[in-house]
C-alpha cells in the first residue's frame, strides 16, 4: 500500500474506495511479506474487517466516518487493546488480553481508523533495535540484514514496508524517532502530556509519550491531530485544547529562527552530519534564519536518562509478579513464585534495567543517583529554555548512524544506549520532536533529521518538518 493516509481517507470518505478493500489489501500485504520482517506480533483481522465494514456503512449512510476513515494503523504492542493480546514483547505478558482499550486506540476508532495489528518491540520498550523482543527480532524493510531501530521497530517497519500508512509507537528515550530515522519514515514524539498515556503499558512514566509514525509529515500531522487532547484518565494529561497542526502545515519557514544544535550533530557519523547540514541549508534557502548553537547540557542527558528511566521502570515492572495475570511459574511460597516468574519471564535487558533502577533508588544511593539525575534533568530543561529564547526550533540528527547490522550491538549495552544520545534530551524536557527522512548515508540507508520545538509547539514543529521533507534528496 503506497497511498498516503491522507489520500486513503479521502478516497474512503468519498466512497471512491471501500474501507474493507483497503483493509483486505493491507492484510494481504502483511500475510505475504511480513514473514521476513516480523513487524507484527499479532493481527486484529476480525476486528479490522468489522471496523472497516462499519466505516463503509457510515459512508453509505452519509454519516461522517472520521478524518482517518478506513486507514489501517499498526499499534505498538504496549498499547492496550480490549480483548486482544498485548505482550509488550515480553514472555511475562504472553497471551495477556487487556479488558480495556488505551485512550489512543479509542480515539483512532472514533476517527474511523482501523487497528490492523500489534507490532513488535523491544521488551517493555527497552532497547534501540527491536532485538530485545521475546518473540524474535524485527528486520529493517530497507535492508533485512539491518535492525529497524527501536524500541518501536515493528511500527516503523510496518510503515516503511508499506503494510500500513500509519502506526503508533511510544517514545521514552527516542523509541519513535530513532526507528523512524533508521527505517526512513517520519516519527514524532509529542509534548509530554499532549497525548494520553492511559492504556500505554508503562516503561518510565515521566518520559513515556505516544506518537505517530507515517510515510509523510502531512500524514503524521493528520494522525497527531486525532491523538492530541486532554484525557481525564491521565493525570499528567494537559488540559489545554490543542490547535490543529494540519491547518498551518504549509505555511513555510520564512523568518523562523533555527538553531543547528552542534551537540546533536557533532558526535554523529560523517554522512549523518552531512545530511543534517544539508537540511539546515535547505531551511535557510527556504527563508529560515539558521545559526549554530551549542547546548552543552545535552551531553549529560544520556547519563541522567539511564538512571531515571530504569528507576521508574523498576517500580512500574514490579507488578509482573505472577499473582494476577501473565506468566506464573509456581514455587513453594509466594516470594519464590515471584522470583521464579520474573526470572523466567523477563529478558536480560529488562533485568539489567530493573537492577540498575532498584540500585539507583536504594537507601543510601538515592541522592547520589536518582536525585542527582533529576537535578540534571532540570538543568537540561533550563538549557532548552535558554536555547528557545533565541531560536524557534532546534535542528539535529536523530540517530548517530544509519541502521546497523542485526546482532552488532545486542551484547554491548553501552553501544546500544548511545543510539539515543540525540533523542533523550527531548524526553527529559518533555518537549516535542520529530524525525524526518533526509536522504541516505554512505551505505544507502536512510538518515533522519530531527526537528525539536518548545512545549506545545507541535504546529510549528510539523511546519518546519514539512519544509525539511520538501527539500529531502
Amino acid at each position, binding site marked *: 500500500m503506497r497511498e498516503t493516509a491522507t489520500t486513503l481517507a479521502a478516497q474512503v470518505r468519498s466512497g471512491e474506495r471501500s474501507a474493507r478493500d483497503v483493509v483486505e489489501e493491507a492484510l494481504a500485504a502483511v500475510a505475504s511479506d511480513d514473514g521476513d520482517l516480523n513487524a507484527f506480533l499479532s493481527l486484529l483481522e476480525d476486528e479490522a474487517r468489522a471496523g472497516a465494514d462499519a466505516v463503509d456503512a457510515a459512508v453509505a449512510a452519509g454519516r461522517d466516518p472520521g478524518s482517518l476513515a478506513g486507514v489501517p494503523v499498526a499499534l505498538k504492542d504496549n498499547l492496550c487493546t480490549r480483548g486482544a493480546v498485548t505482550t509488550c514483547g515480553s514472555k511475562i505478558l504472553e497471551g495477556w488480553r487487556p479488558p*480495556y482499550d488505551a485512550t489512543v486506540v479509542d480515539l483512532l476508532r472514533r476517527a474511523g481508523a482501523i487497528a490492523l495489528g500489534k507490532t513488535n518491540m523491544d521488551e517493555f520498550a527497552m532497547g534501540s533495535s527491536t532485538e530485545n523482543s521475546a518473540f524474535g527480532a524485527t528486520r529493517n524493510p530497507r535492508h533485512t540484514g539491518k535492525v529497524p531501530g527501536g524500541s518501536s521497530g515493528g511500527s516503523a517497519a510496518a510503515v516503511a514496508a508499506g503494510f500500513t500508512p500509519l502506526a503508533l509507537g511510544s517514545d521514552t528515550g527516542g523509541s519513535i524517532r530513532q526507528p523512524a530515522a533508521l527505517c526512513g519514515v517520519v516519527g514524532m514524539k509529542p509534548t509530554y502530556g499532549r497525548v494520553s498515556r*492511559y492504556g500505554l503499558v*508503562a516503561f518510565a512514566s515521566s518520559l513515556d509519550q505516544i506518537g505517530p509514525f507515517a510515510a509523510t509529515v502531512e500524514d503524521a500531522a493528520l494522525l497527531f491531530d486525532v491523538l492530541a487532547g486532554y484525557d481525564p484518565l491521565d*493525570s499528567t494529561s494537559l488540559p489545554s485544547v490543542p490547535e490543529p497542526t494540519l491547518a498551518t502545515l504549509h505555511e513555510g519557514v520564512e523568518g523562523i529562527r533555527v538553531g543547528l544544535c552542534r551537540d546533536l550533530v557533532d558526535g554523529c557519523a560523517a554522512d549523518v552530519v552531512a545530511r543534517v547540514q544539508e537540511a539546515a541549508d535547505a531551511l535557510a534557502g527556504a527563508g529560515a534564519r539558521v545559526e549554530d548553537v551549542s547546548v552543552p547540557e545535552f551531553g549529560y542527558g544520556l547519563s541522567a536518562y539511564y538512571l531515571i528511566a530504569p528507576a521508574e521502570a523498576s*517500580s512500574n515492572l*514490579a507488578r509482573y509478579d505472577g499473582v494476577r495475570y501473565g506468566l506464573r511459574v509456581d514455587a513453594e511460597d509466594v516470594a519464590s513464585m515471584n522470583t521464579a516468574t520474573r526470572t523466567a519471564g523477563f529478558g536480560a535487558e529488562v533485568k539489567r534495567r530493573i537492577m540498575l533502577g532498584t540500585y539507583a533508588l*536504594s537507601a543510601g544511593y538515592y541522592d547520589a543517583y536518582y536525585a542527582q539525575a533529576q537535578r540534571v534533568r532540570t538543568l537540561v530543561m533550563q538549557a532548552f529554555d535558554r536555547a528557545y529564547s533565541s531560536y524557534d526550533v532546534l535542528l539535529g540528527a536523530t540517530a548517530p548512524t544509519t541502521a546497523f547490522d542485526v546482532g552488532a550491538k545486542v551484547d554491548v549495552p553501552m553501544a546500544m544506549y548511545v543510539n539515543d544520545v540525540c533523542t533523550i534530551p527531548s524526553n527529559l524536557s518533555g518537549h516535542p520532536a520529530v524525525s524526518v527522512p533526509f536522504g541516505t548515508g554512505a551505505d544507502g540507508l536512510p538518515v533522519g533529521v530531527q526537528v525539536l520545538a518548545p512545549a506545545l509547539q507541535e504546529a510549528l514543529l510539523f511546519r518546519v518538518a514539512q519544509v525539511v521533507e520538501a527539500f529531502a534528496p
Partner: protein
Amino acid sequence: MSDIEWEMVIGLEVHCELQTTTKLFCGCRNAFGDEPNVNICPTCLGLPGSLPVLNEQAVEFAMRIGAALHCDIRPSEFSRKNYFYPDQAKDYQISQYDLPLNANGWLELPDGFRVGVTRAHMEEDTGKLTHIGASGRINAALHALVDYNRSGVPLVEIVSEPDIRTAGQARAYASELRGILVATGASDGRMEEGSMRVDANVSVRPVGTDAFGTRCEIKNLNSLRSLVRAIEYEATRQIALVESGGTVVQETRHWDESAGRTDSMRSKEEANDYRYFPEPDLVPLAPDAAWQEKVRTGLGAMPADRRSVLVSGLGGTPTDAEKDQIHAVVDLGLDGLVTAAAETGVPVTLALARAANEAAAQSEAALRLDPETFASTLMLESGGQLSATQSKAVLGALLERGGGDPAVIAKEMGFEALSSDTLGAVLDEIIAAHTEEWARFLDGEDKLMGFFTREVMQATAGKANGKEVAAELRSRGG
C-alpha cells in the same frame, strides 16, 4: 530486682479509611462487606497501562482531618512505596512520603494533655488476603485468597509524636481521635471493621532521662482493649529484657490477642527498603487557600466542644457519672439528641441518661432517630404522661421501628392516660388516705399539687395524664 523506675514512650500510627463514595484513584465503589472482587477496575487491580486519578472528595476529607487536628495543610506530593506483596496490586503503594498534606498538629486529650501530631498523610489501602491453612498466618498457609475490593480505598495515616506515656493515655488518644474522625465525617472510625487501625511504637526509659529507648512497633491491635493490653505487655517485656542485661531490638511485633503477647515479625520486615520516589503518574497536590478556608470553616463541632456544650447544659459541674455519660454520648454521636431534647424543655439530666443508656444500647438506630421524636418522648416522661419505665419502653420501640409517633406507640403499648372517671375514683382514694394534706392543699398550700400528682402517677403506674390530674385537682378547689 532493679530500683530503676521506668516510663513508657509511646507514639501511635493510626490508619483510617475515608468514607468516600469511590476509591482514591479510580471510580470503583468504596464499600465494606461486598462480595469479593466486585468493586474493581484496571486501575485498582494495577493492570498494565492503567493510571491513577486523584479523588477530590478524598482530598477534602483528608484536609478535614488535618484541620481538625490543627495541622498545617501544605503543598504535598505522592510517592511510591515499593514492596512486593500479593495484596498490593502494583507491588507499590501510592502514599505520601517527604511532603505530606497535613503536618505539625496536635490532639488534646479530655484531661487537657496535648499529643503532637507529626503528620496526617494520604495513601491507598491494599487488597485483603485470606490465608487458607493451619494457622491463618502467611508463612504456614496452604494458599491464599485475595480480595481487591479494598485495593485503592483512601486512607489517611495519622502519626503522633512520641508524647504518650501510659497505656491509658494511648487509649484516650485513640478514642479521642476516633471521635474526631467521626465528627469530621471523613471516616466511620470502626476498629472492628478495620476502618481505623492502630499501630503502637513502644519503648521504655528510666524516668527522668531524655534519650529514647529502642522502640518496637506493635501491629494487629483490633480494639482499644487490645491497644492497652499490648502496650502494657510490650513495656513489661522490654523492661524485663533490659533489666536482665538484654537489649531491645528495633522490630515489628505482632499482638496475639488470645495468647496476650507480642511476637516478632522481623523475618518479613527487616529486609525492606521501600525505595520511595515521587509518583510520576500524579501531579503535586497543593490545595489553594480558598479550598483550605472552605474546609476549615465547614468543619463541625469536635467532640471536645460538644462535651463542653453538655457540661454547660448541666450547669458546669457534672458528677463523675454524668461525665462518663457525656463521654459515651459524644463518642457515639448521640449528643445531638440530648441538645435537641434540652431545647424543647426536657431536663438535661434526663435526656443525658436516656441517651447514654437506652439510645446508646442501640446506637446505630439512635443515630438515625429523629431528635424531635426523642425529645417528644422525653417530654411525655418529664410531663408525667409516661412513667420512666414506660418512657424507656416507648424509646426502645421507636429505635426498633426506626421512628414513629411516641404518643401513638404509648397508646399501642397500653400506656394510655386514664379516663376522667377512673382518675376521679383514684383521686378519691388518695384524698381519703391523706386527709390532712388535702386540707392543707385546699387551704392554699399549692406545693402539695406535686405531692398529689405523684401519688396519682404512682397509683396508676404512670398512666394518668399529668395535665388532666392538675385540672381535676383544681376543679376540686385546689
